[in-house]
């Protein structure tokens, strides 16, 4: 059984790689390569997998999940310029792919008991989202 929790944060980012030329950056990232940055209202869905506890009927207390997401993700990401203020985006392009992977890495160690982290899905806009299931 899978249960999901949705949270939101707003942040700015710049999609440019120092390893690419200006022309390559603009071809790959389009308007998102603007060196002065731009922002999104991100929506994060965290899916937890497991069997519900026979007494509480819960896989994981969703209040606890909310606390983990606030402490480990929202407090770090919300209203920040990701490239300057959030590791590892000082050295890795903060694409929505890399954001989903980083959120997985931040949340994964804190999910335990009968619950397993199943997937992290990040919506950058209403049209674009990425899901990461911890696969290497």
């Amino acid at each position, binding site marked *: 059984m899978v249960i999901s929790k949705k949270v939101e944060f707003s942040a700015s980012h710049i*999609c440019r*790689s120092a*390893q*690419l030329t200006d022309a390559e950056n603009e*071809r*790959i990232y*389009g308007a998102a390569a603007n060196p002065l940055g731009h922002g999104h209202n991100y929506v994060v869905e965290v899916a937890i997998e497991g069997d519900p506890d026979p007494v509480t009927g819960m896989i994981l207390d969703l209040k606890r999940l909310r606390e983990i997401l606030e402490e480990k993700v929202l407090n770090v990401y919300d209203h920040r310029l990701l490239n300057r203020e959030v590791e590892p985006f000082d050295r*890795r*392009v*903060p*694409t*929505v*792919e*890399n954001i*989903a*992977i980083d959120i997985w890495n931040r949340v994964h160690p804190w999910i335990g008991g009968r619950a397993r982290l199943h997937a992290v899905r990040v919506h950058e806009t*209403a*049209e*674009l*989202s*990425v*899901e*990461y*299931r911890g*696969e*290497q």
Partner: protein
Amino acid sequence: MIVRLSKRYGFAASHRLYSPALTEEENRETYGKCANPHGHGHNYEVELTVCGTVDPVTGRVVALDLLNGIAEKQILAPFRYRNLNEEVTVFQTVVPTTENLGVEVDRRLRAAWSETFGEGGPRLEKVCIWETDRNICEISTGAVADAEGWGSARSEKDIR
């Protein structure tokens, strides 16, 4: 690291749900108002889910300009503001339900996929079509079309 990226597109089109293999009464029973002879339209949305490895330099699983390009060329341009029954070849013989539209979208994308992304590139995993907010069809890529040999004997050329 393997991720799945989903990108959503929209197009508006008209269709009529009517099968010549059924009687008038059966068509009305099966499709209801959707069988009205003059057709009707929807604002369709199509979400494509692509699975692959994140490039360590670009941080991308798929080149979005190529994904937008294949969607535009294979799906949006041929379907946008069209009468699907009259102007898209396959729907002259196949009823353009949300299910069949999903199968055709998947088939068109797969036919042009390796030419666009090369071998070993990201793979198309899923196609999801919204006919309305409440009528949604999801297709694991290839499953239906391959099983039924869909479109194998048909011309790819649209009528216009």
